[in-house]
């Protein structure tokens, strides 16, 4: 990236911190470093990570960081929280051309959300109420406690899945996104049928892979209010039942036992104090 960018006027380096489609997390620090060398802004998509995995905008000096309300924040879908550095604010003031979109033009939207409170467009008031409460819940728990809860629940899920003989799409644990676990569909198993049974028999929704990965792996999200011990055990129990019904050979009860064991060995999650 360094080599490719040399001699070019690179305005920004952009990446997804958590790539939802594959369950992969990417370390931010090296990208900030290369962006610095190129004199570029750093833009980070934290849709799948904010509140579930450390993002730490100021610590990483992220220039533009945006997320989504419906992932680890557990507010309804419909908004994208965004934060923009002072450096970007200055660049916006100095723009020579208007921003291509009227609705998403930060130079004018900020007049509504900024000191002026000058009307720009009508925002989703009821969703903002919901977001307010969801953020209160996140901060009451504390970010560190939330990150630890997300980590523990994924660990238990993985322990359970592996005890059932299943494998993960992301082989290197360091690359695994805590909030989304991509589980390889065992050979001979109809992935869509399993998801259908989970939904219709147990009211549990999980996702397939996207595009070329649709028949390759399932994606199990454990984010925000959904990331709870009871849900992990419920999912493992339901999945085991369905797979046994479909004729798969797996040690009954092994998934639940492994998950329960993972929790027993985990440090108790401390009551978070917001710093």
């Amino acid at each position, binding site marked *: *990236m360094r080599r490719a960018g040399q001699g070019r006027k690179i305005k920004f380096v952009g990446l997804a911190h958590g790539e939802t489609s594959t369950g992969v997390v990417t370390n931010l620090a090296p990208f900030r470093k290369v962006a610095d060398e190129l004199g570029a802004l750093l833009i980070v998509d934290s849709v799948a990570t904010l509140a579930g995995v450390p993002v730490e905008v100021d610590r990483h000096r992220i220039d533009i960081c945006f997320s989504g309300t419906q992932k680890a924040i557990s507010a*309804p879908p419909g908004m994208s929280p965004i*934060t923009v550095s002072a450096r970007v604010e200055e660049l*916006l003031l100095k723009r020579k051309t208007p921003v291509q979109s009227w609705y998403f033009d930060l130079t004018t939207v900020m007049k509504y959300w900024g000191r002026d409170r000058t009307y720009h*467009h009508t925002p989703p008031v009821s969703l903002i109420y919901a977001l307010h409460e969801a953020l209160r819940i996140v901060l009451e728990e504390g970010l560190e406690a939330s990150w630890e809860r997300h980590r523990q629940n994924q660990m238990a899920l993985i322990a359970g899945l592996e005890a059932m003989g299943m494998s993960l799409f992301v082989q290197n644990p360091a690359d695994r996104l805590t909030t*989304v676990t991509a589980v390889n569909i065992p050979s001979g198993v109809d992935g869509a049928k399993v998801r259908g049974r989970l939904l219709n028999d147990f009211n549990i929704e999980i996702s397939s892979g996207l595009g070329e990965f649709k028949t390759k792996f399932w994606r199990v999200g454990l984010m925000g209010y959904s990331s709870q011990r009871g849900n992990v055990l419920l999912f493992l129990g339901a999945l085991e039942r369905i797979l046994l019904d479909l004729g798969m050979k797996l040690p009954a009860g092994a998934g639940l036992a492994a998950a329960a064991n993972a929790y027993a060995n985990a440090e108790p999650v401390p009551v978070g104090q917001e710093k």
Partner: protein
Amino acid sequence: MSDPMEELRPPTRLMLTPGPSCLSPRVYRAMAAPLVGHVDPWFTEFMSGVQELLRRVFQTANHTTFPISASGSAGIETAVINALEPGDEAVVCVNGVFSERMAEVVERTGQRFIVFWRPSAGLSIQRTCAVPGRAVRSSL
């Protein structure tokens, strides 16, 4: 087809997908609170509180912090089009659908960009660039 005039009765689901996640009852209650106008002084004061909570969750002191009035993909759009002006180039690191979406948004601005594909767990994702000559593709 069911009668669209029928009462709304969604099933109760446990959502273990990559989003949306389940909501706490507290969030449902908050969402049903009485609506006020978006330029009502009460609401504009309330907005400041929401912005402050967002700063704490982002762990930033950035003044320009707020919720865009559309979902995550609007965040991609906003970030890219506000950062770029004609003549700028961008580097987008693509390792899946959503990072690729950022590259597509850049592509639609007409500005030049370099895309880096990061193989996911040993599998490289093959994609073609719709605007030949505009992008340089390399494997990371």
